[in-house]
């Protein structure tokens, strides 16, 4: 039976192993693991919902362009402006392009993009699936012998996992462009000189680490939004809670993953 019946059955048990709260916590973790397991299982099993995947990619990717462009651009400018005084104290403003390159590609672009996607895409997925759940649309898909998990969840998780990395690259480039405009007006650095400096300081490891991060964030945002929405209960208030939890939980997880990945990358870096 669907993902839900497990939840329903469990909530009916009146005997607890430890206490209601602790049991619910571990049951929650168990359910999340099962949910993720099911995503991995169904990604590879045909039939594939290509049309829906493309539609979701469009929604996640294209529809977020305006927001990430603006944020990336402004972050580039502001970060450059704020870094200049410290560097100029040492007469090192010529290091600006490399500093910016490293800061944006290694840290800012993935994190900013992930947080924006968590807010915009995550809440959207949570609310959409949540309202489909509470208005019985997901049940209706189940009784018509179709697979709502594949149609709704798998396609969205694929879309966020593919699109967030692209958005991260895009945000990085837009951020560097913003930074270049500022450096160009202040230091009269040419376009080629700026980008040559910026990119020589970025290693292959930096870019691949950022892309791996982005894939992890995208997957996290998709799974969190879908899990919250797909398991929403208790009417319209539940939809609100699902959307809210989708954002809060995925932002929290993104920060957690950021810390872990940075540690790992810093451990690997000297080995290469």
């Amino acid at each position, binding site marked *: *039976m*669907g993902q839900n*019946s497990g939840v*329903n*059955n469990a*909530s*009916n048990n009146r005997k607890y192993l430890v206490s209601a709260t602790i049991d619910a916590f571990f049951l929650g973790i168990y359910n999340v693991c099962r949910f993720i397991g099911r995503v991995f299982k169904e990604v590879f099993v045909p*039939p594939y919902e290509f049309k829906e995947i493309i539609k979701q990619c469009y929604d996640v990717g294209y529809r977020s362009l305006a927001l990430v462009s603006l944020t990336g651009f402004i972050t580039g400018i502001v970060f450059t402006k704020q870094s200049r005084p410290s560097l100029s104290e040492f007469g090192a403003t010529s290091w600006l392009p490399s500093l910016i390159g490293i800061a944006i590609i290694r840290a800012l672009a993935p994190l900013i993009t992930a947080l924006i996607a968590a807010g915009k895409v995550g809440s959207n997925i949570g609310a*959409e699936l949540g309202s*489909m759940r509470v*208005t*019985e*649309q997901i*049940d*209706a*898909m*189940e*009784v*018509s*012998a*179709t*697979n709502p998990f594949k149609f709704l969840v798998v396609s969205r998780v694929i879309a966020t996992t593919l699109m967030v990395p692209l958005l991260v690259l895009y945000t990085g480039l837009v951020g560097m462009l913003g930074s270049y405009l500022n450096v160009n007006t202040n230091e009269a650095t040419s376009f080629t000189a700026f980008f040559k400096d910026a990119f020589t300081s970025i290693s292959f490891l930096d870019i691949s680490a950022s892309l791996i991060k982005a894939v992890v964030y995208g997957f996290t945002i998709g799974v969190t939004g879908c899990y919250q929405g797909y398991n929403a209960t208790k009417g319209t208030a539940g939809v609100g809670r699902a959307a809210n939890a989708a954002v809060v939980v995925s932002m929290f997880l993104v920060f957690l993953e950021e810390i872990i990945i940075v540690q790992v990358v810093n451990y690997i870096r000297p080995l290469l």
Partner: protein
Amino acid sequence: MKEQLPRADKNNIVISVSGLVKSFGQLQVLKNVSLDVYKGENLVVLGRSGSGKSVLIKIIAGLLAPDEGTVNVLGNEVNKLDFKGLQAYRRRIGFLFQSSALYDSMTVRENLEFPLVRNKRNLSMKEVKEAVEGVLESVGLPDSINKIPSELSGGQRKRIGIARTLILHPEIMLYDEPTAGLDPITCVEINHLINKVQKEYNATSVIITHDLTCAKETGDSVAILYEGQFIERGSFEEVFKTSNTIVRQFYDYNFTTTK
């Protein structure tokens, strides 16, 4: 009023529910529900609001798991089926939700195509188009094909909901309040539709309703759910001839004025 009961024969049972118990937290909704539905029969389930009628048919459709008891439909032990088995079983049943549950981000056409193209993958575009138009025709809403659910009235949504289940030619139809909140004329149309489904598709139906006219028009037999059990089961006349006051109330409140 309908002619006669289809053969109430032991060999003809398609839905067999026995000893069903279902609770939500402290609330025991179904206490001991047993019910047989015969092939080709339209069974009307009556019961007060909150008596667990929707819960019962959700259990029959495998959407909810019972705490105790068995549900055997078309030879399937419903709550023991695995995912594949459940899908194969659900291909043979149709479920009209009390809330219609149309996919509100899709047009009517996409709503109807959704189950069809996913269950019959070898259909050509032309066949899909014909099936969609045909089923819309039979619910009397051919013009709504490009509308989205929020542009439809409640009754139109119900009818599209019926169309969406009919498109797979189910052997068993489960209707949850098909006429609730509709005007008398639309009610009659829906009643006709339900009877047409019985005849043309040879379907067996379980119809939940509060509307005794609908019950009388469509039901070959009536069962009354009260406090978690079926207390009465038989043809419309039989059931309402009884002296049981609880059963009489259903009838009296529907057909006598409250002056």
